[in-house]
């Protein structure tokens, strides 16, 4: 009976499941490469962290030895502490970026040019910025030397002092990061509903009050994005450290990402297991942050939908 019914005959398995399957087919190339180049290396790297391996000789299984060594490693704590400083002070990029965005969000002659000048640091390579700031900080002939002389710190070298080196690098890192946050906020400001501001004004809101209660909530998505990229930027702060101090003086401006590189891949390194252990710790910290933010995003979206 069924066989004679042309309708049931034509519906193949493919037709039945087409809608369910086709997104996966489109996603497949991305998923495959993402798992090969991002997901798999994470597990491989965690695996290596249980071995002692110089990249040439056969690797030796050492269990948790690398992690135990890490707990007793002064430089590890210095790097961890510096990462924390980065997290805190790098966050300044968000309010400063917001302030500049609001300042630039006006219609006057030539504003496009001025805006693009403010974007500029974001376009320059981090390496160039690191190099230029190193020159700025140079004692005796750097750009800031006259200022330091004026406040009585003649010949003071920011990058050679263990107490100031990290702040010197963070300051240099803020320069492009502020521009990044600025771009995010400028796009956010474009999408602000002018009617709400009008309504707010009618109800007598102005100045800071207007900004805090009406403008800022509408910039929530931009703020969220700016915080996420800044946190990740702070945790992976590698290039600036590599260019400006190489973790020096004597490891006091090191961060986990650079310390990992130093142990695993630099000229005197090739301790792949130890480097992987550092990477695993860094990954865990990042994971906490990322999960927390994803959770918040998820919650907010749900609230929006309700």
């Amino acid at each position, binding site marked *: 009976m069924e066989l004679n019914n042309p309708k049931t005959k034509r519906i193949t398995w493919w037709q039945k499941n087409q809608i369910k399957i086709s997104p996966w087919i489109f996603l497949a190339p991305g998923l495959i490469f993402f798992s090969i180049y991002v997901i798999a290396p994470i597990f491989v790297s965690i695996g290596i962290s249980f071995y002692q391996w110089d990249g040439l000789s056969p690797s030796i299984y050492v269990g948790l030895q690398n992690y135990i060594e890490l707990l007793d490693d002064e430089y590890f704590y210095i790097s961890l502490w510096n990462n924390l400083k980065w997290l805190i002070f790098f966050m300044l990029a968000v309010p400063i970026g917001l302030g500049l965005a609001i300042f630039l969000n006006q219609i006057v002659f030539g504003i496009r040019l001025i805006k693009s000048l403010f974007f500029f640091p974001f376009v320059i390579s981090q390496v160039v910025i690191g190099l230029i700031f190193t020159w700025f900080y140079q004692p005796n002939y750097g750009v800031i030397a006259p200022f330091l002389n004026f406040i009585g710190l003649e010949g003071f070298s920011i990058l*050679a002092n263990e107490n100031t080196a990290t702040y010197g690098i963070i300051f240099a890192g803020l320069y492009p990061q502020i521009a990044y946050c600025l771009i995010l906020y400028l796009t956010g400001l474009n999408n602000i509903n002018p009617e709400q501001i009008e309504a707010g004004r009618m109800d007598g809101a102005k100045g800071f009050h207007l900004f805090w209660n009406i403008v800022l909530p509408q910039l929530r998505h931009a703020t969220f994005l700016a915080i996420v990229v800044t946190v990740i930027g702070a945790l992976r702060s590698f290039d600036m450290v590599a260019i400006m101090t190489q973790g020096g003086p*004597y490891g006091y401006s090191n961060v986990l990402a650079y310390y990992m590189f130093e142990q695993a891949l*630099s000229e005197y390194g*090739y301790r792949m297991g130890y480097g992987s252990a550092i990477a695993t710790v860094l990954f865990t910290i990042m994971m906490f942050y990322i999960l927390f933010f994803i959770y918040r995003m998820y919650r907010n979206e749900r609230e929006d939908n309700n």
Partner: protein
Amino acid sequence: MKKVIISLIMMFGIISSTSFAGTLVINTDTSDAAPKEAFEYIIKKFEEENPDVTVKWNVFDHEGYKQSIRNFLNTDPPDVANWYAGNRMLPFVRAGLFEDVSDIWKDSGWVDGNLSENMEHAKKSMTIGGKQWGIPYTYYQWGVYYRKDLFTANGISVPKTWDDFVAACATLKAAGITPITIGSKYLWTTAGVFDYLNLRTNGYEFHMDLTLGKVPYTDPKVQAVFDKWDELVKPGYFLENHAALSWQEALTPMVNGEAAMYVMGNFAVAPLKEAGLRDSNLGFFQFPEITPGIPMAEEAPTDTVHIPSKAKNKTDAKRFLIFMSRADVQEEINKILGQLPINKNSSVKKGDPFLKAGLNMLNNAYAMAQFYDRDAPAQMASEGMKGFQEYMSNPDRRQKILERLEKVRQKVYK
């Protein structure tokens, strides 16, 4: 299907056998001008003498080579590769990636007499486990480079003893001149100072024992080295802010006449002369004696050539190594490099007072150290040099630093 597989195998066969016998593949890190020119010259000469061999020469970037050699020794080994003596080659020897070339050293029937005799002073640094693993072809001296005119103006003569040296520093400092310039951003310059202080205070054997991990860093003899170092660091005889400067940047005060001395390798002469110093105001002296009666050993990092154990054309590779050991070849190559030949029968470029002084010093040297980061294993070297830099900025932390280094030593030399 079978046909496809067979033709694929044949294709790969053809590709991988491009370096057939008669082709000698040489990988070097000689990307800088003089070393590149030296190898160009020497390879041409080798090809002329051995018309049956075609050399395929790959030049790598000097810094990048340190990474790439680890890959190509395993995956795409050349027939000859250059590298450095001492502990620097230990990881490759231990991993079985370098060929044992003891026969070249032993056999006196090779081209130019007995190598073990002609290069006796360099043999130790080429030996691991009683075997030799390569051929050294050039080295250069370390010592103190100084501004002659500043010495004369302040009535200082070249110091021969430690007391003279410290007194000279005091005079210079009083005259408003930084006695010793140094740029320690990349750490290794501090090791030059440490090596010499240790070689002069405790002697070569102790220095080797220390870099081989046989002596604790908390040993009173190591403390004695830092006591001497204190005499320079505590009164501020070293350049301020050295941790922010590379070794090249630290040359500037010396060129400007604001600093008088630099504990350095001979490669500093070229940039100093480029910056305007002349033989008349730039001089060299041997690092002064500290403990009287201790034989004077010197720092002389050595460059070497090796045969990877996976090389395809080992016969011609050996011919090349023997060629590189010859007195006349080393003479030519070092004339271009502006460095010193290892082979005792080679002569040096005339008219260069620095090379002449270096040759004199090294030929009379009791022994040759390779430099802290080549004598000590990588991890120890990196922690050690960090410690030296920290000490030079904070001499009062000495005890803490030495205890940390001792902890590292116990881990590294298990």
